[in-house]
């Protein structure tokens, strides 16, 4: 294809604008904020693990219920809690629910206790423990046909 001078100029300009825009798009946001430092990442991870540990303690505690049972009676190492399969239709509740609703159902029915506030620190900790024991699992929202073992735990509580 043969372009005249004016056309060449327009083509060049368009390309230049495109390259400039692309450059801004790629480098802009990354330069607007520096990466987290190793110290910051370590502090964030520690916060998470503290929450997981609180969840572990609650998971194994009879104080959520009134009949002596704990989540861990049926779900050792959070086995068969299947957090990665939520949200899903839960037949015994007749609706699509997130994991926290299932946790509250377990607290109210098998444990005969009072439901937690969905935004409470306790609920966040229980969710953190259940999810952390299934780290690396593929999300399978809606799966209702299998019970999954958690991550393989050889020793210790299952987290660092």
């Amino acid at each position, binding site marked *: 294809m043969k372009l005249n001078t004016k056309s060449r100029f327009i083509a060049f300009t368009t390309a230049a604008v495109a390259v400039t825009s692309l450059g801004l798009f790629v480098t802009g946001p990354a330069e607007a904020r520096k990466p987290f430092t190793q110290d910051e990442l370590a502090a964030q991870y520690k916060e998470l693990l503290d929450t997981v540990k609180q969840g572990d303690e609650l998971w194994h505690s009879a104080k959520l219920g009134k009949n*002596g049972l704990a989540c861990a*009676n*049926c779900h*050792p*190492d959070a*086995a068969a809690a299947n957090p990665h399969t939520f949200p899903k239709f839960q037949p015994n509740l007749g609706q699509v629910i997130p994991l926290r609703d299932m946790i509250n159902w*377990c607290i109210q*029915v*098998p444990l005969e206790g009072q439901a937690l506030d969905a935004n409470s620190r306790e609920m966040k900790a229980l969710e953190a423990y259940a999810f952390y024991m299934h780290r690396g699992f593929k999300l399978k929202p809606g799966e209702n046909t299998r019970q999954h073992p*958690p991550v393989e735990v050889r020793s210790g509580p299952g987290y660092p």
Partner: protein
Amino acid sequence: MTDFSKMSRRDFLGFTGKAGLATLVASAVGTSFGMVQVAEAAGNARLTPFRFAILTDAHLYDIPDHKFDGILQKAVEDINAMNPPPDFVVYLGDIAQSGKRAELEKGRRILAKLKVPLKVIPGEHDWYLDMGKAWRDMYGSPTWSFDHKGVHFIGMNSILVRDFWTLKSLTPDERMGFMEELECHQCGLWGVRDEQLDWLKKDIKKLKPDTPVVVFTHSPLWDYYPRWNFQTEDAPQIREILSGFERVMAFHGHVHQVVYNRIGNLSSVGTLSTSWPWPYPGVELPFPGIRMNRVDPGDILDGLGTQYIDLEKEFSGVLHYQTWSDLLPEGVKKGVKL
């Protein structure tokens, strides 16, 4: 659901399709001397056919009218209604949840309603508050054997862990608290230990190799999932001591689930609890067809049950899981061949 209590022995034999006429007649009239002779004349009889039942893992709490009390009572009523009845019941451990005398006493009161004799071995939940004192006061030695209709039955205490509490100066309550968690990461592996291994060697010394031997322990006699103590550390030594017998049948509690394995001459079967079911750990089952279905959390009785075993004259047999919900795949409903 199947009403197993109304299921007759004749129905059961029809199921398996291996009933000889002599066996049918002999079992219908029980231990009548003449009929036993008929049964023995028909084949290489080593025992007089009979039935026994297994109850386990009630995990009773020291709380009045706790829901697990009612489930154990229901299981006792089911076994009392069986026709024909079992000759005896074996309880495979964990009557109590926290080792309290009151929990064990409650269990004894409920189990006292059984119309047939009861033999008991302990589980870790019965033991680690007072190191078995209350349990022994009620049931005596946790290590025993007896002979019944040609079969040698053995019970052992398989939940003996190494001392993890003295160095840490734990109180009995703290020690029990650790042991109550299935995934306890302080407690270590458990086993029957040397004293019981020596006892076992002596106990079987005079038995002929073709003697039918049945062993009961709280935990499996094979390495299933050590993380949850689904194991007995000295099971290899137990299997070695029993390796001279043509066949050994082992039954265990602790796993609260349907599971089966066979190692050498020993078959091993897991049993259903009357408290809560446990999910399968993340390892491949040795016999994946022998398992239970996914449990419905909305049904308080799902995943629970009792079991009975019918032994045949040549020391074969079938274990039937009795459940109150739709828990078993078709193949397992028909019974597990031993």
